[in-house]
């Protein structure tokens, strides 16, 4: 028989205001096995933990139940406290009477009754708990960073500077990401390339960093500290070692009609291309869908002009398999498609562009060489209208429910830069709210209004109508003046919502990392573990976790790196001892468990079994404890009840259910 202590936490008034904690103590005292029960204001505090230690020592407790918050919050805290007091940490159970009880109920009587029931269930389970010992697994001292934008580059640099090997996998032909497409950055207006390209060079030159561009993660197996990853290096059709980056192939390529991804389709590129002049690596790829050699078999101009003999039409995709201790996701974002927003005439008029397209137009290396001009006729615009929140903060399913966070600031930047360079151009911004929290952000916005005379109008735009004369008539509302506004414009710029890069879904599935309804990766705790995925060993960097500007992205990238370094610095990790264990006498070798195991942890072995005196050879299931994650899928699948999860055995679960239904 166990000697159980029950500790009921007030959590200040979080629990005690709705649950009569004294009454809970009085009732659970009479539960079988309970020899001690008490309550305290903050059980997780040092004093609270001391109470637990004291009771363990004085009452010789063999198991404890803490009635408090979610185990996700403090299970580890109380397990450590128990361990320090000499108890096996797996003899600790949490009854969640906060999230599951006090926070969701109003009636004190009902909440108290439920708290008692939850405590009873935990007590019933502890009665059947047995001490468990965590195993150990080794840590591969190498990190994988998925995505080579500013987030991925910064994370990789920070990990590498700490002395660990890092691989960056980037799906496009160059690292650099969205930031490489930007012209200037807020709030300091420094040129994006000037602050990004040195970091790109640093990453490329770093002895601890290996960059796989034009590559994608194909398969992930293993677990924290010991991931095995297949990386598909897509056939570049150019030999990375031979190419000198001279660029002649791109000049001579006769297929030049493919819309440039880097310029957001505003200009064309050749079939053999580097996305931009400062690309890293400075080695082109052949887009086989556009290349005449691949399409028709005729051409081969690039091979003829290449002095280095680097062109290799026969090159094939290559799979690289590598082991990693930690994985950082930094897959970034794209702007949403505007098919649901035809009222803004984006698909109807070349002079309606997204803000990211405007970045390319403003950029000296962009399709207009940095001259502000209408894309329809190349004319200098006199009136520009910016429309905020296109697809952001959307209450129906046309767009996104969230604020994209960066648009208010980059629109103020665009407006200011245009007014500065072209004082003859009038700039109007339609907005719902102007949101500028951040260091020197509101000052920046006010400069746009007060010093640069940008005309901000609070109100939404209902229609952008192309006119027969080529101009655009913007129909909006001024909410402060309660007037409809018809404004003739030469260009309209849409602050288009951002969304996680579509590739993230596939990657999240491979990593078993959770994503939310908007495809942003979920952090382990919104406040306390913001850069860690709930999946151990997976960390989050940049916009893949939520909308962010560059300063925030770089900060988070560093935080993700620190978390990864903290993991890589360990030689061994304690493994979760709550793994599946087969009862070989009951196992009939049907393979049902192996078929459902998502981790490939179950194999079969033919063994000599002594079944109550009958000795025979049987095929029985075996669990690899290093691979098993304790998900329990096998235990519910096993038709003969042979599979059990240590720490969550069928008997323990049934005892909990019985206690609840009693």
């Amino acid at each position, binding site marked *: 028989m166990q000697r159980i202590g029950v500790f009921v936490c007030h959590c200040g008034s979080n629990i005690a205001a709705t649950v009569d904690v004294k009454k809970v103590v009085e009732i659970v005292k009479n539960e079988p096995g309970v020899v001690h029960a008490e309550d305290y204001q903050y059980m997780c505090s040092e004093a609270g933990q001391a109470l637990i230690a004291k009771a363990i020592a004085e009452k010789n407790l063999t198991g404890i139940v803490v009635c408090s918050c979610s185990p996700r919050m403090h299970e580890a805290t109380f397990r450590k406290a128990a361990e320090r007091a000499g108890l096996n940490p797996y003899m600790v159970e949490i009854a969640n009477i906060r999230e599951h009880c006090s926070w969701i109920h109003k009636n004190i009587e009902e909440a108290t009754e439920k708290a008692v029931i939850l405590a009873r269930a935990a007590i019933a389970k502890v009665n059947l708990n047995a001490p468990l010992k965590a195993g150990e697994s080794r840590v591969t001292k190498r990190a994988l960073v998925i995505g080579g934008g500013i987030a991925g580059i910064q994370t990789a640099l920070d990990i590498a500077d700490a002395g660990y090997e890092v691989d960056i996998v980037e799906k496009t032909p160059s690292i650099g990401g969205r930031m490489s497409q930007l012209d200037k950055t807020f709030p300091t207006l420094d040129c994006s390339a000037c602050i990004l390209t040195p970091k790109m060079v640093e990453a490329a030159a770093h002895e601890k960093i290996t960059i796989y561009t034009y590559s994608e993660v194909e398969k992930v197996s293993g677990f924290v500290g010991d991931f095995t990853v297949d990386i598909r290096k897509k056939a570049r059709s150019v030999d990375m070692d031979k190419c000198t980056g001279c660029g002649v192939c791109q000049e001579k390529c006769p297929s030049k009609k493919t819309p440039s991804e880097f310029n957001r389709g505003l200009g064309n590129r050749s079939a053999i291309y580097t996305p931009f002049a400062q690309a890293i690596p400075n080695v082109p790829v052949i887009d086989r869908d556009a290349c005449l050699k691949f399409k028709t078999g005729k051409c081969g101009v690039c091979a003829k002009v290449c002095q280095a003999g680097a062109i290799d039409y026969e090159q094939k995709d290559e799979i690289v398999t590598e082991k990693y201790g930690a994985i950082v996701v930094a897959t970034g974002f794209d702007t949403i498609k505007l098919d649901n927003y035809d009222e803004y005439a984006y698909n109807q008029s070349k002079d309606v562009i997204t803000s990211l397209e405007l970045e390319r137009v403003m950029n000296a290396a962009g399709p207009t060489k940095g001259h502000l001009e209408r894309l329809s006729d190349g004319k200098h615009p006199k009136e520009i209208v910016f429309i905020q929140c296109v697809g952001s903060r959307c209450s129906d399913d046309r767009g996104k429910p969230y604020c994209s966070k960066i648009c208010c600031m980059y629109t103020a930047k665009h407006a200011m830069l245009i007014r500065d360079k072209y004082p003859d151009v009038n700039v109007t911004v339609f907005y719902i709210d102007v949101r500028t929290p951040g260091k020197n952000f509101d000052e920046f916005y006010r400069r746009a209004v007060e010093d640069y005379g940008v005309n901000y109008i609070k109100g939404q735009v209902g229609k952008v109508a*192309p006119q027969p004369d080529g101009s655009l008539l913007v129909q909006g509302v001024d909410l402060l003046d309660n007037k409809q506004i018809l404004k003739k414009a030469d260009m309209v710029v849409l602050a288009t919502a951002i969304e996680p890069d579509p590739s993230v879904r596939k990657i999240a599935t491979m990593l078993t990392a959770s994503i939310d309804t908007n495809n942003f990766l979920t952090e382990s705790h919104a406040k306390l573990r913001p850069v860690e995925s709930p999946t151990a060993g997976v960390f989050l960097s940049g916009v893949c976790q939520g909308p962010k500007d560059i300063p925030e992205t770089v900060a988070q990238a560093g935080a993700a790196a620190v978390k990864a370094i903290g993991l890589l610095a360990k030689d061994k990790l304690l493994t979760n001892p709550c793994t599946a264990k087969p009862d070989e006498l009951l196992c009939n070798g049907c393979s049902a468990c192996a078929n459902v195991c998502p981790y490939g942890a179950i194999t079969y072995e033919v063994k000599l079994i002594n079944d109550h005196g009958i000795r025979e050879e049987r095929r029985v299931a075996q669990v690899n404890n290093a691979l098993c994650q304790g998900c329990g899928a096998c235990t519910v699948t096993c038709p003969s009840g042979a599979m059990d999860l240590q720490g969550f055995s069928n008997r323990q679960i049934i005892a909990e259910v019985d206690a609840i239904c009693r």
Partner: protein
Amino acid sequence: MKYSYFPGCTLKTTGKELDRTARLAALALGFELEEIENWQCCGGVYPLGSDEIATKLSSVRALNSAKEKGQDLVTLCSACHHVIKRVNDDMKNVDDIRTRANNYMKLDEPYAGETEVLHFLEVLRDRVGFDTLKAKVTNPLKGRKIGAYYGCLLLRPGKIMAFDNPENPTIIEDFIRALGAEPVVYPYRNECCGGYISLNEKDMAKSMCRRIKDSAEGFGAEMLITACPLCEYNLNKAEGGIPVRYFTELLCEALGITEEGMAL
């Protein structure tokens, strides 16, 4: 093929031409519009009050009549189509309205949105098919530049009307193409003509219609076609500019239905 047909009041008065030409074209295309007996005015405006039941009953009667005949219900007037389609959606999806409307109706079998409501244009697109229509055109309207005017009632609310993309519709342009003419796309084709505001704020309705007509004309349209008698009325009241006709008038012309034929 027979369809139950709800003409609506306007098609019996100022919009007779829409009714007459639609029936003739239907016959030429091999389907028949069977007018519902004792139909009543749809109300003209969809009642937005969630507790408003009485004004929905006319639509429910028409819908149930079609259901009893096992026919789809075809409309022509945009306003009637709008009201009936939305009431049908209510009967299908809003428990409270369905229960209360059926309590009034006392039908043998309660009505629960079973009837499919089709606008005449949808019949052309989805049942006849624009390719078939094109094949039946004997008098293609070659060289004619025609602007489609949708108005608001056919398109919105987009999810319930499920007619076309409300911000960038194409069905009437496809129809114009099937007749052999050239559609002129202009941005105000889905903007409001003013609707009933023309009763007490004539100038406002006129300025709204002016903008629509000027925009279409600016992009090269020689004529506008519409499915809505109220739009037709408002647009033509804004004097000058290009003519506005019912889409069915052009349909008859393209199908070679002559004035004599029409007289039958």
